[in-house]
């Protein structure tokens, strides 16, 4: 699944570690999600959406 996490993070000038801290996950998790190597669970996807103030479908895109 594609996502806009890297773009949204860059817009806010957050490092991967900063985003990871805000989501209470590891930096490896953020990296894996950004590079499309891992699709987050629905609860984590909702946490990401809440953090950016966007609906899930504005962050995660169908292939």
């Amino acid at each position, binding site marked *: 699944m594609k996502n806009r996490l890297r773009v949204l993070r860059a817009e806010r000038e957050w490092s991967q570690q900063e985003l990871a801290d805000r989501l*209470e*996950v*590891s930096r*490896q*998790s953020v*990296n*894996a*999600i950004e*590079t499309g*190597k*891992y699709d*987050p*669970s629905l609860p*984590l996807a909702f946490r990401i959406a809440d953090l950016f103030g966007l609906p899930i479908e504005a962050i995660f895109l169908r292939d």
Partner: protein
Amino acid sequence: MLPKNPAARRYMIRISVAMTVYIGGLFAANYLIDNALVAGPLAWAAALLPAFAIAGVFYAVGMLIVELKDEFLRMLLVRQNLIATAFAMSVVVAWGFLESFGLVGHVAGYLIVVLWAAGMFVGAVSNRLTHGSWGQCW
């Protein structure tokens, strides 16, 4: 130094306890049984003490899977364990057939733990290649 991650910290403590019991148990069993200081059920208990300690290692790994809050790292750890288990069992089954056809000698069963540990390394390499992370949680 203990890890910052609470689950990893508990894991390290559990592993340390298990390995201490293993080393102590192994020395005790060797000494007691080699010198015929125990017999019958006590000899069995002494001989099994190192095995219980190794079971403690598996318990520690299982609890790490349960207690890790990071879902990505947890997934990597589960993946790593499945690869390690499949690796160890495959090698043992292959060895068993070779042994039953008289092509290789007998090897002590407890050495499967060494294969499992090697399999954990294989699993970590696989995680790095497929998911970009070794799965370290501290």
